[in-house]
């Protein structure tokens, strides 16, 4: 589902090559059927609408952040102050908080959701796999504000009492686990994101794994592979699909607003310690947009939205690059589609 279909030679180009002259009728309806032509135009319009939406969004955001771009220029990206009273705006702490919280989320969610998916597809008996898969999908449907409230009332106290003191004791020599323990901060934000994206990643990975042909497993088993080795073959086959699932999860983590806002502490600062409060781009927009009346302030908030676009774009690009460099070696093998 994530993998592109093996591309057939485009009918239009095939006809075009034969006819040597461009024939709009042929381009529209390679099969010569009027219904097909209509269907093709309709699909093209759908694709066009999506492009238009993205384009108008970027144009509108860029135009509305003009004031802030003109005033701060590149300093907006490196500035650490965010003070609506004096009109000083810098986005660096928000960029930092967004990227670090998403990385923490991936670090936890990827092994977890891969484990869940592999168990469901490869190991679990049917009677167990069905209800668990259902629950996983149910988790994906919970509104994020509910995750946020659960984060404040359950997760944060749990981390404060049981997890963070242990981290401070055993790993306290690392700069990441120093400072006052409050249960609210970057670590909690990352963990709640991990919990939120796990169902998404595992649901997609489950579909991808189920799509790997049974013959692959049978072949591996026939060669005397253990269950573990067979699973590795299946995972290798599904690598690009799994990567797609992870990117999907990452996208949600970067853009997630409510749940993170509830537990991250909403303090624009850059601190090595994961116990300290932090702030994400999506959170600051959600928090401050409704009450921002000053034009420069509003413009700065919109510009930070533009930066979120760019961050998402770059992180996705980097992830794709990573996937490409990892799966390059296995590109000859069959992939799950």
């Amino acid at each position, binding site marked *: 589902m994530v993998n592109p279909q093996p591309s057939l030679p485009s009918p239009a180009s095939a006809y075009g090559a034969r006819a040597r002259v461009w024939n709009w009728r042929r381009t529209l309806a390679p099969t010569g059927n009027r219904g097909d032509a209509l269907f093709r135009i309709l699909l093209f319009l759908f694709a066009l609408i999506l492009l238009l939406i993205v384009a108008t969004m970027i144009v509108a955001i860029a135009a509305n952040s003009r004031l802030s771009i003109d005033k701060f220029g590149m300093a907006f990206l490196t500035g650490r*102050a*965010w*003070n*609506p*009273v*004096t009109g000083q705006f810098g986005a660096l702490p928000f960029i930092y908080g967004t990227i670090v919280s998403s990385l923490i989320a991936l670090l936890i969610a990827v092994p977890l959701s891969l484990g869940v998916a592999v168990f469901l597809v490869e190991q679990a008996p049917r009677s167990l796999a069905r209800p668990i898969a259902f629950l996983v999908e149910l988790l994906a449907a919970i509104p994020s504000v509910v995750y*946020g*409230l659960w984060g*404040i*009332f359950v997760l*944060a*106290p749990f981390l*404060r009492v049981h997890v963070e003191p242990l981290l401070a004791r055993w790993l306290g020599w690392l700069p990441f686990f120093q400072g*006052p323990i*409050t*249960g*609210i*901060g970057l670590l909690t934000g990352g963990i709640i994101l991990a919990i939120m994206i796990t169902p998404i990643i595992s649901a997609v990975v489950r579909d991808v794994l189920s799509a790997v042909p049974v013959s692959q497993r049978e072949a591996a088993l026939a060669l005397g592979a253990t269950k573990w080795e067979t699973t590795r073959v299946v995972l290798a086959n599904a690598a690009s699909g799994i990567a797609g699932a992870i990117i999907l999860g990452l996208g949600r983590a970067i853009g997630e607003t*409510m749940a993170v*806002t*509830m537990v991250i*502490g*909403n*303090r*624009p600062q850059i601190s090595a310690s994961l116990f300290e*409060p932090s*702030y994400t781009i999506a*959170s600051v927009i*959600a*928090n*401050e*947009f*409704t*009450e*921002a*009346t000053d034009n420069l302030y509003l413009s700065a908030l919109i510009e930070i939205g533009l930066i979120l676009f760019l961050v998402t774009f770059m992180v996705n690009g980097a992830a794709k690059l990573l996937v490409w460099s990892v799966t390059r070696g296995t590109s000859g093998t069959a992939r799950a589609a």
Partner: protein
Amino acid sequence: MSFSKNSWRTTSLALFFASLLALAAACSGQRDATGPGTGGSGGGGGTINLQGAGATFPNPLYQKWLSEYGKLNPNIRIDYQSIGSGGGIKQIQAQTVDFGASDAPMKDDELKGAPGELLHIPTVLGAVVITYNLQGVAQPLKFSPDVLADIFLGKLKKWDDPRIKAVNAGVILPSSDITVVHRSDGSGTTAVFTDYLSKVSPEWKEKVGADKSPQWPAGQGGKGNEGVTGMVKQQPNTIGYVELAYAVQNKLPVAQIKNSAGQFIDPSIEAVTAAASASAASLPEDLRTSITNPAGASAYPIASYTYLLAYKEQKDAAKGKALVDFIWWGIHDGERFAKDLQYAPLPDEVVKRAEAKLNSITSGGKPLRQ
């Protein structure tokens, strides 16, 4: 066999969408029947539609007003969207709504951004209370303004600081770090609280200032009253601020604050109305004012008005008349709903001032209230 199954599915899908469409049409038909949206002229016996948008803080009261007023005047339909004071100001400036609402009065340059003269009409009062989480402390804590400001500045770091002890004789305070919790979302509650701190602490005024979302020198941010409350409840040794109504409904521990007369005052509706009465004499002509840190001996010092915003010159006489009548009803009959929802009603002298404002609203130069 399989063909008939397929066609069954197609038919039922089609039926489903058809019924959805029908439902949508029925709903919009209902709306249409009450007259066109914002553009409705509503002359004669027709229905008049009014649109308002703005502050979230008074929203529960305004919704109550709308439903009660709607029962009395079935031909007037008023919608209020609680999109935040910022949005309310923007929309009334752009004239996309008939009235706006804001907790903090509009600033001078915001008023200049409007195409006509905007009036501020106070409706009720709200207060900001200090809540905390200290295990083993039963009696209400007391704070003097300087102690409060220094805690939120991050200068007082321990609960058993001598300065906190000095105003809380007999209370055993833990020697733990103070964790400050503030609102992370821009809010009128924060504006009132920081306005108060700016008045009582020169250092706060200089370093932080009064704003809906200032740059906080210390602590964590929680989203909304519920976010701040959650953080305070779940973390020991925290201190935060929330709306009075929210604190009362959730039975939070609240602190007594020392007012300018030197009295420690429990936050209550009466003490808030007292704060408004105490400052009523010095109310400016346009009613835009801050009543934090007022003079009266029984006044609670962290309180504020919330306002409705309307143009002095109404384009449409029928709609303008409906709007003026509605607000008039609100600040008279509507005030009796305030207490149940934990808002402080306006003192009489302020109602008189608001009446004068409403009487000054005109359409085509003619006053809308006779």
